[in-house]
């Protein structure tokens, strides 16, 4: 038996932020890009153990899992627990596509009163609580990269991006945080 591979996560040791905006890399998570037609939503919801959101900009959570609506037939499902997302989707028997993107994406957690200001340093979305309440999510832009943004609390966000863009995302957040109120 060969030795076992060890894991090296992006943004290891990255730190930054200010008193009003705290930045930290999220821990590793399981993720799938889930694609399916309308007819498969309810069975997939059952086997995944959460109800896949069907409204734009919304997410749904259950236990360690969160499903983010990204498009009319597309969800990003994140599991911060044991995983098994691909298998769960497969067990539905519905026609769908579940592709493991656990390592493609990485996430940065942004917390504090200035978090929306810092994000608006590069994100063109209206991040006021009225337009983007807790639980909202969207694929959008942050500076020159594409990200998926999830509002986890009034003053906290999770920013998902592809791993090779994570240094840029963290760097821009670090600089924008300096300018956040």
């Amino acid at each position, binding site marked *: 038996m*060969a*030795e076992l591979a060890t894991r*090296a996560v992006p943004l290891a040791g990255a730190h930054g932020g200010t008193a009003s905006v705290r930045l930290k890399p999220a821990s590793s998570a399981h993720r799938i890009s889930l694609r399916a037609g309308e007819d498969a939503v309810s069975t997939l919801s059952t086997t995944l153990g959460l109800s896949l959101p069907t409204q734009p900009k919304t997410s749904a959570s259950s236990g360690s899992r969160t499903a983010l609506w990204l498009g009319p037939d597309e969800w990003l499902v994140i599991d911060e627990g044991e995983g098994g997302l691909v298998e769960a989707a497969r067990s539905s028997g519905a*026609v769908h596509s579940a592709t493991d993107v656990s390592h*493609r994406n990485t996430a940065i957690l942004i917390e504090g009163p200035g978090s929306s*200001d810092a994000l608006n*340093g590069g994100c063109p979305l209206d991040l006021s609580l009225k337009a983007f309440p807790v639980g909202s999510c969207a694929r959008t832009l942050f500076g020159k990269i594409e990200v998926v943004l999830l509002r986890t609390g009034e003053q906290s966000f999770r920013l998902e991006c592809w791993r090779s863009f994570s*240094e840029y995302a963290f760097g821009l957040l670090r*600089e924008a945080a300096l*300018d956040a109120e």
Partner: protein
Amino acid sequence: MTSHRIKGAGRLTPARKARFTFDGKIYTALEGDTVASALLANGVHLMGRSFKYHRPRGILSAGAEEPNALLDVARDSARCQPNVRASVQEVFDGAIIQSQNRWPFLSFDIGGINNLLSPFFAAGFYYKTFMWPREAWAKLYEPIIRRAAGLGVAPKEEDPDHYANRFAHCDVLVAGAGAAGLTAALSAAETGASVILVDERAEVGGALLFDSGIVIDGKPGYDWAHGVLARLKAMPNVRVLTRTTVFGYYNHNFIGLAERVTDHLPRPNKSLPRERLWQVRAKKVVLATGAIERHMVFANNDRPGIMLASAARMYLNHYGVAVGSKVGVYTAHDSAYEAAFDLKRAGIDVVSIVDCRAKPNEALLSAARVLGIEVLSGYSVVNTSGRLRISSMTVARNGSTNHRKIPVDALLMSGGWTPSVHLFSQSRGKLKFDAENQRFLPNIYAEACVSVGACNGTDEIGALLAEASAAGGGALNLSGESAYAWTGGMIGAAEGAGPDTAVKAFVDFQHDVTAKDIRLAVREGMHSIEHIKRFTTNGMASDQGKLSNMHGLAIAAEMLGKDIPQVGLTTFRAPYTPVTYGTLIAHSRGDLFDPARKTPLHGELVAAGAEFEDVGNWKRAWYFPRRGEDMHAAVNRECKTAREVAGIFDASTLGKIEVVGPDAAKFLNLMYTNAWDNLKPGKCRYGIMTREDGFIYDDGVVGRLAEDRFHVTTTTGGAPRVLHHMEDYLQTEFPDLKVWLTSTTEQWAVIAVQGPKARDIIEPLVEGLDLSNEAFPHMSVAECTVMGVPARLFRVSFTGEIGFEVNVPADYGASVWKAIWERGEALGACLYGTETMHVLRAEKGYIIVGQDTDGTVTPDDAGYGWAVSKKKMDFVGIRGLKRPDLIRSGRKQLVGLLTQDLTEVLEEGGQIVADPNEPKPMTMLGHVTSAYWSENLGRSIAIALVADGRARMGKTVYIPMKDKTIAATVTDMVFFDKEGGRIHG
């Protein structure tokens, strides 16, 4: 402090002082002073030189429209800023300020000779001369002109300051915080709307800062403004941005703001940005941008000490500074009277009000009488004198030649007020001409936007407050009154500006455009206002015609005998005032200019000593030099080792798309020229993608993992556009297919192991898969376990050797790479980079899309005609490929080239000819697309696109270089292992 600051006047605190230098001399200012008010307080009127004639110039205005007093303001050698308007820049302690466009001194400037030569330098003179001899323009005239032109000097060092950006959204954005803007903002805010209120000055108030005659809700205007400000600041739905310019009004209520954060601070906190760009999307925009006072156009109206009446009033009422001790007034509008009254009440000698109107407002005349100010109505100022500051004005009754010279040290002028419709125009709203008041006003709106107050032609305070309150959407009930109702105004040349003589009556101060220049332009056939502007440069200076446009238009209209609207108005463009590049760029510089993408193996590559190259956004390992090796030596070693033992390569940047669904094969059939339904799970195939035009768009190996799942690879640079292209067809043309696409480029770290010992290297790390040739032959794919993690293993080769591509989840990539390299190193393998990859594939004649092809190459041109299915009824490109030019003979085809001198490596991009002795222009057959030294073959090799290339096999062609001509023989493209046995082990 000095004799020009009047005790008790103004709103600055005498105890709070700041020191600065101007042209090396130390001066004292008060906190809150602008550079202009501080210099005036010190008796300094001469602040600059004009662009063309180098005429002495002083401060003209107290705001953003300033055309004359442009200075260089610095903190240190890197933080220096040219062309700063003295009327806008606040003084800070330690500021180093210098005048511009003069040599050797501001008071004695050699360039002033241009003023004497001015008869020669009429508008457009340069189009008529400087043409002989032909070479002299670029060699002699232009360098002289260029040296003479330009105002400030660009900084020589990189800007050490940083800038910030903020996207924002609001219900109502209010531009301008004068009486109208404050009212609109308060009205909107009280309805609960989110409001952003913006003003370019350090303080809110707008005209209330100088206009002492306005009372709102029973309070002096200034006090009322600050009361409203306090209320707004206490509201959570309101953001007030001062020192912030609304510089651009873009599509769909997208508004650009530039906020000056630190330029007024003596020692700014380093964490603060110098300026902040706000990009605001507003549901509604309220324009409350006020109006700008016009100057009068008369002879020598540009001497230092001559300024707008409202500016003098601002310097007095807000800054407590007297702009002169013997002051004359020349006006066509009532407002200048109030300036005169304020000055007189402050104890300044106002010698005369010269009003070119025959019958000024009776109330003003009587007020003047009470104050003891002489009013000369029906008179004009026809000239001035004074070298570096005005010393007298010459007045004459209109129509009379009897002149009277009156000594003055300042002359205030007012031609009335021009509504600031710049932002309205930028929004593409249509203006209408208000003939009665000779002004353009907003008429048809193009955006969700409303103009209020002076910029809308609403001058009366009560009406203004009501209009602004309604615009805000609320219902404030404010009362307002002003001391006098204003009437009057004129545009165009006043008496004493001509009619058409050698007199210099300035229309555009900065560019030295005079009334006679405008007339000359019309005489020369420039009848469109845009032609007049471009011919004379009127309105093209850094103030963009804020003062000059209307005058220029009126003079042209008079010359043409047309109404002003018929002559037109030049287009207002963003920015309203100049905006620093650094602000517009904000964070996008250095590392944040453009993301540099690194693979999961990057750290390992760095540790192994790799040199990197940029490929698209990626940093890729180029080669791995060992001690003492240059690139050539390293690549030669890598090439040899890879073929003799094995090489290990980071292929993670290859684009990957997971194509999943019951119709996956059907979809790929349409997207690639090849057929896919007959590819069995566990097998791979090289695919070529064309667009409808039939030219090669991308290529890559596609592995079928299951009936309904394909792992598609693309070129490194092509990944995003290929996915977009596929989505386009899937969503638009073939929406009924049940298949989905997911980018997995970054999910996998890809380690290519190539060479005779490739299998030996990876075998011990792989579980659950028999890697033998029989069980896992060339072009196989399988899911397995590598070092305990789920992996996808490809048996593929881009080198012609036995090859594997190990795909493991990216986080495990570095660990697996380390293990593979540990085994590889022990067996004598090497790491290799993109350069060696290029050589090895060229030895085998494998093409690189984008290097050997360029968007004009068909699969057949590239020698890949076999990859185009003949059986398929349809695929993207099927029709384009059959067009006449794509099937004609004589097309350029990819072939091999062998130089007759083995050691001669061709230049990539070298052009190929059949007859090296043909005179220029020569007939080119094609070009060298790839060329390398092949250590394995002991000679140079090349790939080239050559017209009719395959028919030229064995023939000699020539590559003429700058210093020599190289002969080469056309061959097929496979240079190494022609039989292709090695790939199968």
